[in-house]
């Protein structure tokens, strides 16, 4: 492993966790390619944590590229912009990959829409991102532009970004941690963004730091992506940004784990990084921030990894929000005959999808297509109480007992074992020799406990 000078307060690692096969080989060397503009988009009105956005357009209405089609529906919410020019269709409900039923509005693309133009890569990721311009923006302006651009976290949880960087009088922030770990196996979108738009990443990072008032600024990258560190280094030089190389270990990209690895601080259970003076932001989000502030453009597209043994030509794709999975799969040569499972996200925390009309959202980082070989499942046996799940849980929980309590609907016991603290990272299920679907049981238990 490359040895890198460590000049951040954390240890570069966290306790427990696992090291699954990385499986990044399918797409890590594929430059970001642009998806030809799809004929129709299904734009969900809830793509983030918080309140759904409120629709502003009516059926048959013409919209232009970048137009606000739905406004924020509350404080913790984000507006949605049309990624193409076209005609709005009749709204309906749709099921997202994560199982939530949300309202959706279709947009039929006009034949001459931007996005079809070749220049879109240049416009979005290319060009200069001059750091000298950053002084022109006050923290308030930055927050406002992030808010207007509808940016939400692109790592998966999709929390509205402006809320994160907004200065909080009661909880001052002193550190910004940019999460470029991308610890999920298979996924390479963040990696490619760091390689292909390093200057945008640094610019966005500095803007976010300025908005939040953070003095210490770190970009955490796992040690298996040293080329990304090298790509960022020239632009980070002379700025306040520290490139923090952390150990390659799942789930390094989890907020609690990254913050612990980089700053040595422990986020309280049920709390936010803010509680320990930290703001955490995904690395792809920094690109969106830079684009919103420096170029005045909303978040309409993102980079999505389409990968796995089951896809003909794995790629990293720059695609509009709302595109159905089918289009992305077709663009990547289609599915192979022995495809067994399609996952929105990575294999550890992603969601298996059954319907390829399901659209991608601002938080979709990849599509992982697995074949029969990948998923050949061993039989499930009784728990043999081997404790392997306990040995790997990064949060120091007892997965087997929580899962059993959830299965038996013994909520008192589930609480005793701190079921509410579980972040559903999947380390436990990955390590279980008995193949017990621990995360599913725990997730189900948490949902049912809330309903009670």
């Amino acid at each position: 492993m490359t040895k890198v000078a460590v000049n951040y307060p954390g240890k570069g690692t966290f306790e427990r966790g696992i090291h699954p096969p990385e499986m990044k080989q399918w797409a890590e060397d594929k430059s970001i390619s642009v998806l030809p503009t799809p004929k129709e988009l299904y734009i969900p009105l809830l793509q983030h944590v918080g309140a759904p956005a409120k629709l502003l357009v009516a059926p048959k209405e013409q919209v232009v590229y970048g137009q606000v089609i739905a406004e924020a529906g509350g404080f913790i919410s984000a507006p949605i912009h049309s990624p193409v020019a076209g005609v709005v269709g009749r709204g309906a409900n749709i099921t997202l990959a994560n199982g939530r039923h949300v309202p959706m509005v279709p947009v039929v693309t006009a034949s001459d829409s931007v996005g079809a133009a070749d220049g879109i890569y240049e416009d979005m990721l290319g060009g200069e991102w001059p750091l000298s311009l950053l002084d022109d923006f006050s923290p308030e302006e930055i927050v406002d532009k992030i808010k207007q651009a509808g940016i939400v976290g692109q790592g998966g949880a999709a929390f509205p970004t402006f809320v994160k960087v907004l200065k909080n009088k009661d909880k001052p922030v002193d550190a910004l941690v940019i999460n470029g770990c991308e610890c999920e196996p298979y996924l390479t979108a963040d990696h490619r963004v760091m390689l292909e738009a390093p200057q945008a990443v640094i610019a966005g990072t500095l803007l976010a730091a300025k908005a939040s008032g953070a003095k210490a600024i770190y970009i955490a990258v796992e040690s298996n992506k040293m080329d990304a560190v090298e790509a960022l280094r020239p632009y980070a030089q002379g700025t306040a940004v520290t490139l923090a190389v952390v150990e390659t270990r799942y789930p390094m990209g989890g907020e609690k784990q990254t913050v612990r690895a980089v700053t040595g601080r422990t986020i309280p259970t049920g709390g936010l990084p803010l509680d320990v003076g930290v703001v955490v932001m995904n690395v792809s989000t920094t690109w969106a921030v830079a684009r919103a502030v420096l170029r005045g453009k909303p978040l309409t597209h993102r980079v999505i990894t389409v990968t796995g043994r089951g896809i003909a030509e794995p790629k990293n794709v720059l695609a509009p929000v709302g595109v159905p999975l089918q289009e992305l799969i077709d663009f990547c040569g289609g599915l192979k005959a022995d495809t067994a499972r399609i996952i929105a996200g990575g294999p550890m925390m992603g969601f298996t999808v059954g319907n390829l009309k399901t659209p991608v959202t601002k938080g979709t980082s990849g599509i992982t297509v697995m074949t029969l070989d990948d998923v050949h499942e061993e039989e499930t046996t009784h728990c043999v109480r081997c404790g392997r799940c306990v040995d790997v849980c990064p949060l120091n929980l007892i997965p087997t007992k929580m899962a059993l309590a959830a299965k038996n609907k013994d909520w008192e016991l589930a609480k005793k074992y701190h079921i509410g603290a579980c972040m559903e990272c999947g380390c436990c299920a990955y390590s279980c020799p008995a193949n017990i679907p621990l995360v599913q049981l725990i997730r189900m238990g948490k949902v049912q406990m809330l309903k009670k």
Partner: protein
Amino acid sequence: MSTQGMMRDVLVGLVPLILTGLVVFRGAALAQMVICVAACVAAELVFTAMRKGPVSIKDGSAAVTGMILALSLPATAPWFVGVLGSVVAIGLSKVIFGGLGQNLFNPAMVGRAFVMIAFPAMIGASAYVVQDASVHALTMATPLTSLKMSGVVTPLGQLLTGATNGSIGETGALACLLGGIYLCWRRAAAWQIPVAVIASAAVISLLSSGFSISAVLHELSAGALLFGAFFIATDPVTSPVTPRGRWIFGIGVGCFIMMLRKLSGYPEGVMFAVLLMNAVVPLINRWTIPEPLGGPVPVRN
């Protein structure tokens, strides 16, 4: 990794003990192993059929129980001892609780306890000495008995290589170490347990012997201490799931072994020590619920 794979690891870890047993006790040992494994597998089939549960032979746990039971018996024990022990191990201690993973007590040790009480002469201390045996080792009392009864200290070399009398699997200390380390390395056994058992037994023996290193080494390598520490106490099903719990459990087993060895008329205490500690595992699991990273879940109203 699968349950089956884990059981395979245990069987591989047992290979050095099996070989040592075969070298020392020859055909009698082979017969005992075949009888116990076959009887355990058959019992599992019959009992699961009776409970109409899923057939769980494939996971290999019955074979592991059979092998460990065989290794814990004297080679001289007649065939029906092995068969009965197996039937009790699988029927009374495992399937009745719901099969693999549901039992409270280590099945092999329950089976052994049963035959020990039922046939004290055939498996008690006297069973080991076969005066007219052709194999030299069989003409001697076990190292722990000779120490207790006549104060004879068996040389360490003999204890390490297995050139002594005893249960089939316990004679070779080196074989136990080798197989045990493999087991821990494969994570088929939690390393904290053998370390805790051995360390606590060593400390007690050091104190009680007036700081005699040779007494400690004799204590550790004679009898079933190493066999028990690595292969019996580590049975995942009947030991705690948390690291802290495993330390408590291991120390408990070590202390009980030493107590039984020193205070009871019976020179060997591994089996009872493990069974005793098995009984408190649910309690240990409750005592050792760790605090989640970041503290307990806040209560919201």
